[in-house]
């Protein structure tokens, strides 16, 4: 089994631009999708993120600690949320990404982890 990060770009983040009804449908679709991931035993973790302007960057790698208000990358598209899934191979991960992309109305980047994290004992 391999673990993958499925990160959402331009979906949740642009949710502010959605009308409330569309947003409700999206949240409902994502919940249905999440449930199917749990049912399939592929679930490790997932969550949505608060908007990127709430982020803070800390850099202590060059000696002094520098704290900056705002996201690391100056870009319009930030990660809006992510799933971590545990599946057989990339084909399985891509198949989940297709469904996730439809549910969250955004592009999904699939990226493998270096090693597998232990799956949580409790799927909350």
């Amino acid at each position, binding site marked *: 089994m*391999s673990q*993958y990060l499925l990160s959402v770009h331009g979906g949740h983040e642009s949710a502010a631009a959605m009308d409330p009804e569309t947003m409700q449908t999206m949240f409902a679709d994502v919940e249905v999708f999440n449930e199917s991931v749990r049912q399939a035993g592929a679930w490790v973790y997932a969550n949505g993120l608060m908007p990127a302007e709430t982020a803070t960057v800390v850099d202590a790698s060059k000696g002094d600690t520098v704290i900056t208000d705002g996201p690391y990358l100056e870009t319009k598209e930030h990660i809006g949320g992510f799933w971590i899934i545990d599946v*057989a*191979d*990339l*084909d399985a991960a*891509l198949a989940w990404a297709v469904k996730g992309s439809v549910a969250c109305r955004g592009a999904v980047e699939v990226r*493998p982890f270096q090693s597998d994290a232990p799956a949580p004992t409790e799927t909350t």
Partner: protein
Amino acid sequence: MSESVDIVSIGRIFREEYGRSIATLIRTFGDIDIAEEAVQEAFVEAAKRWPKSGLPPNPGAWITTTARNRAIDRIRRESTRHDRYVAAARLDPGDEPPVPVGPVNDDRLRLIFTCCHPALATATQVALTLRLLGGLETGEIAQAFLVSESTIAQRIVRAKAKITANNIPYRIPSDHELLDRLKPVLIVIYLIFNEGYTATGGTDLVRDDLCTEAIRLGRLLGQLMPDEPEAAGLLALMLLTASRRPARVDAAGEIVLLADQDRSLWDRALIDEGQSIVRASLRRNQPGPYQIQAAINAVHSDAPSAAETEWGQVLALYDMLIRIDANPVVALNRAVALAELDGADVALAAVDVLGLDVYHVFHATRAELLMRLGRAADAAAAFERALALTANEPERRFYATAIARAVTRDRR
């Protein structure tokens, strides 16, 4: 029974057997680098041994067995205890045998689907397919596509890293995903063929080695997936196109257009093979873009001359193709048939709306139609545009001659 074995015959065996051995070793060891190194070592060994001992009864099997032993030696020599444990698990003959999930259980078919995995960029798919299944050196691939050797080498290294990091599976896609996954495989093979048939740059119009390799891969795919009509269609398309190869360039190395070709030079064996595949496709009646393009080429290969071509049939096939694949290049080719049936003015009107401004064949087609309509000055300008857009030297000379012809006619 030591038959003479020289470097040429070892080279031939290398071409024929490399892909098969690599594919089998990748399945056994789950690692492309180990497989490549071991197969190369086995061929080095063969080059030393065979000239003295003669060819073994089954050279391909000899290579695969020798390579497997080399790989096992290497893994035992170099691995830590943990790695040894993991590798031993793989090597254990009690290990579950490969489970056939697709129509045919062949390691090369697995490998081509891995090489053409949609998570890899098209240029990477092409390089990886030629490297692993075709056994081409990175230098040869670089030369064929006019990019630097380091670019190709990097592309292949990155692809292997991506396959490993992502756990890209080594298997034939299951039936429900097969149609989608077959598409990039066909595209890669056809790209290799087209790059060989009309090189994008350089001194020669044609690179026969790439055409030969693409047809070889097409045949392999046809054998491995006999029930895929589009795989057969692609093979027929390549065979029928390649049949005109001897007539496409004259003795001086200049391009000869389809209408002006000496049709007695066409390769009858390739035509017969291609046409019989097209007939089988018609009986099967599951048309797709490659089969239809093959059928169009079959119509041309039936005609004793350009004038005697069944243009009505060609046009009907293009109409069918456009319904499946509405792409402007198809519409451009359709316009050529339209010109024969309804006149150059009708065809020109159809071409002008296509917006293929960066494609040299678009301007060349316009130019030919303008010439027929007696608009020589406009034709010269269109040939100029075509000339500016290609780096292939025979094509450039062809357009230069056409410009001179148009200018002369304009002055009369």
